[in-house]
């Protein structure tokens, strides 16, 4: 028995089981079975050209060597991706736990109440923070969520709009570039015309069926959208808002202002950046649009005995029923990440999230202030976590990379810096030192965080959120660990028994494959 062979571990039947199995099937050998199964004219006659297999240990060494080649600069690029702290209790008990990660989509609700509850928490968190009536259990990323918002609004056009082929969709120039790109991909084939511009200049013409705003904007600015949304509503133009989930802790919710859809990413709720993903996007909307929501929604129902029980709601909307009448094709979503982001909110609760959001905002204000002190001005009068400094961006880029810092450079004279919950005083000083060096000034060492005041009063959050008990109970690690365990125990996953789902290939997810994910 060659213990170095991963195939030995991955494949279930032992060699000694083979004779009996072949006999039952009625063949002499595996080769005969393949011969009888796969048509001759498509059977490969040559071996694939792949490297010799590595053992598990060789692979782990190899991947560690590769990991060492990544240069882990501190990165303040923002644009929807922010460094975050994954709470170790969530890492250990969810991300590193096959009881959570090997489970299937909770179609069989009776053996999935644990993750259904975790997803309900996620939906509640999103609904609370966005101020909407309901949210789904995740979409693939913010950009596709925005595209889904666009197509939802398109399909919600009223009879008149449809008759008049109202097909223009306005996109604020504050929308993130990658979102814009995906919107283009998605708009063209179904005949939506995109118009991009400043939302302040938007004319609310009846050629438009919808609008997408970004909150805060790509530049970092925080707008008061109240008036805009009211105007749009009165013109029968529906409004989608792409929002930063953490900023919503301090900003009034788009729902409060009347938005029709709010989308965004929950990455910065504890999910590793992972060089792009996976992260769970959210999609929240009004109750009246519930039958049009893309993706899966968890809902409360009751069981045969009348006890409350969770399950995926409105399954009749799924594509395998609707097929070419479906408005969205989303099937597999980002459940594991949604579970984790939801737990992040459970662990921190409203008070913890306020602490974090304020920390980010205050650090940003402190940075703006320090730059001002060395004579540099940033142009965002309002902001949550992002400032934009007008200066020689090429020079800054050169110096910043020398100090292992990444900023975002939208053009040659702008440096955009987005801070996050991991930013420390030490880092702030390092950032300032880059600018000081570039401008040949002497920077005073920052020793204290000041209180930020860059959120316009009209946009400051006044509504409560996360008032449900689940967000106010599990703030100690022991409590959260047991809560996670309690949910896990309700769910059947691959670490209990076979899940023989046709067309789903629920095979072994080997530990050696998973271990490197703990060090992203």
């Amino acid at each position, binding site marked *: 028995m060659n213990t170095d062979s991963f195939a030995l571990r991955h494949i279930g039947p032992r060699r000694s089981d083979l004779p009996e199995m072949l006999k039952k*099937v009625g063949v002499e050998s595996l080769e005969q079975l393949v011969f009888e199964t796969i048509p001759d004219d498509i059977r490969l006659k040559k071996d694939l050209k792949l490297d010799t297999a590595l053992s598990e240990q060789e692979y782990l060494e190899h991947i560690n060597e590769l990991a060492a080649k990544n240069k882990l600069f501190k990165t303040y690029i923002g644009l929807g991706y922010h460094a975050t702290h994954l709470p170790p209790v969530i890492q250990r008990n969810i991300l590193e736990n096959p009881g959570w990660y090997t489970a299937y989509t909770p179609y069989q609700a009776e053996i999935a109440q644990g993750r259904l509850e975790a997803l309900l928490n996620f939906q509640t968190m999103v609904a609370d923070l966005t101020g909407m009536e309901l949210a789904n259990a995740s979409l693939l990323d913010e950009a596709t969520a925005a595209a889904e918002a666009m197509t939802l609004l398109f399909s919600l056009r009223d009879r008149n709009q449809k008759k008049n082929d109202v097909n223009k969709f306005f996109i604020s120039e504050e929308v993130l570039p990658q979102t814009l790109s995906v919107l283009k991909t998605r708009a063209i084939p179904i005949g939506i015309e995109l118009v991009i511009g400043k939302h302040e200049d938007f004319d609310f013409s009846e050629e438009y069926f919808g609008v997408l705003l970004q909150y805060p904007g790509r530049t970092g600015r925080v707008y008061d959208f109240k008036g805009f949304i009211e105007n749009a509503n009165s013109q029968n133009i529906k409004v989608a808002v792409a929002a930063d989930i953490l900023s919503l802790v301090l900003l009034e919710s788009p729902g409060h202002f009347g938005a029709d859809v709010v989308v965004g990413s929950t990455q910065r709720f504890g999910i590793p950046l992972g060089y792009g993903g996976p992260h769970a996007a959210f999609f929240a909307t009004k109750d009246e649009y519930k039958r049009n929501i893309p993706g899966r929604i968890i809902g409360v129902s009751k069981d045969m005995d009348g006890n409350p029980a969770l399950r995926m709601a409105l399954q009749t909307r799924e594509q395998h029923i609707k097929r070419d009448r479906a408005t969205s094709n989303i099937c597999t979503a980002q459940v594991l990440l949604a579970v984790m982001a939801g737990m992040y909110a459970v662990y921190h609760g409203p008070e913890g999230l306020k602490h974090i959001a304020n920390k980010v905002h205050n650090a940003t204000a402190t940075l703006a202030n320090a730059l001002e002190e060395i004579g540099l001005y940033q142009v965002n009068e309002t902001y949550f976590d992002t400032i934009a400094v007008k200066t020689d961006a090429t020079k800054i880029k050169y110096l910043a990379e020398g100090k292992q810092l990444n900023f975002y450079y939208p053009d040659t004279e702008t440096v955009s810096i987005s801070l996050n919950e991991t930013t420390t005083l030490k880092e702030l000083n390092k950032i300032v030192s880059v600018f000081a060096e570039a401008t040949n000034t002497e920077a005073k060492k920052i020793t204290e965080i000041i209180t930020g005041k860059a959120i316009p009063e009209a946009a400051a959050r006044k509504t409560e959120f996360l008032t449900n008990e689940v967000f106010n109970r599990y703030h100690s690690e022991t409590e959260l660990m047991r809560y996670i365990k309690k949910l896990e125990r309700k769910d059947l996953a691959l670490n209990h028994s076979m899940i023989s789902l046709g067309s789903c290939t629920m095979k072994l997810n080997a530990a050696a494959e998973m271990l490197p994910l703990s060090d992203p």
Partner: protein
Amino acid sequence: MHPFVPVEQAEGYQQVLKKLEKQLTEITGFAATSLQPNSGAQGEFAGLMVIRKYHESRGDHHRNICLIPSSAHGTNPASAVMAGMKVVVTKANEDGNIDVDDLREKAEKYKDNLSALMVTYPSTHGVYESAIREITKIIHENGGQVYMDGANMNAQVALTNPGAIGADVCHLNLHKTFAIPHGGGGPGVGPICLAKQLVPFLPKNPLIDTGGKDGINAISAAPWGSSLVCLISYAYITMLGENGLKKSTQYAILNANYIKERLKGYYETLYTGERGRAAHEMILDCRPFKEHGIEVVDIAKRLMDYGFHAPTVSFPVAGTVMVEPTESESKEELDRFCDAMISIRKEIDEASKDEPDNPLKNAPHTQAMLTSDTWDLPYTRKQAAFPLPYIQENKFWPTVRRVDDAYGDRNLICTCDPIEAYMEA
């Protein structure tokens, strides 16, 4: 690591992603791969958009007909519509295979506007259709491109491939065939692999240089989609190698056929290949049990009492289950599952339409029921929760009884309000 850092900083990731693209390209027998799509369905959309762009690049702006066999997964037509195509459904013959004559007729009928065929291989019926090369040839002859849905790729790896069957582009579900855990419903990765003529159209990203020289706009936000979990598939392929991958596919087929044979006489396999073999999965017909008043959902729920998650229910054929054990399951586990299915079959035989108070209709049975002081069902507690001896060793309890879907849909509640609030609704 942030997705928009200069690529030089991400050399480790870049090496993994490039290598994984190469591996998948080799496995599919194609020319290139894009890891951008974040799910199988997104891969479908991406693939179709690439086909669309390909036609446009040749001036064929009008090609917008997409042929889709009736047995296709619902995401296929949905993706086609999203890509601006018109879906034309082709028929299945009585063996469950694509009706080649019907397909030819439609391909020829729409010859001038034919954009693509979407085909799953082996079929969603669990069969390696032997006409597949003929089918792809027909499409090509009529100016179309062939999109292969890769959900069943676990039946192909190292034994055949999309290139060999004559496809032009396919997506792979790395969260199925290539060992990314399902995560309770994601994450997924749905890369598209494609033939030479389509390479120029691979999706781009507005901030980072990637994709084809004439590439379509972004399919998802990040240049390489969900890079972090791509590590898993990279590990899978790297540790198995050609030999291990081939063996895995062989065992996947063996395990499926072993179940099929063990269940013979209890459950009929709906479709098989020409020589009577299943592919890596099989559809078991449960429709005859209606005469005992038993629906397929009763079997699915009853399996929970035996400690098993149900196979796929009513897809692609209503009233059936589709079983795919994969190569990772041991003979012991297959036997336990078969024992459970056979035991359930006996329960079905004992059930009757007139007496719905049977273990199947009442399934699943919860701990609360089983430990209750009152028991007024017409069968024993043991029959309810421990019908076979192995269950006692490691019982898994469903935590609620059968859920009422319709009730919840009528009274939609999607946030965690206090329990009392639910109950008033």
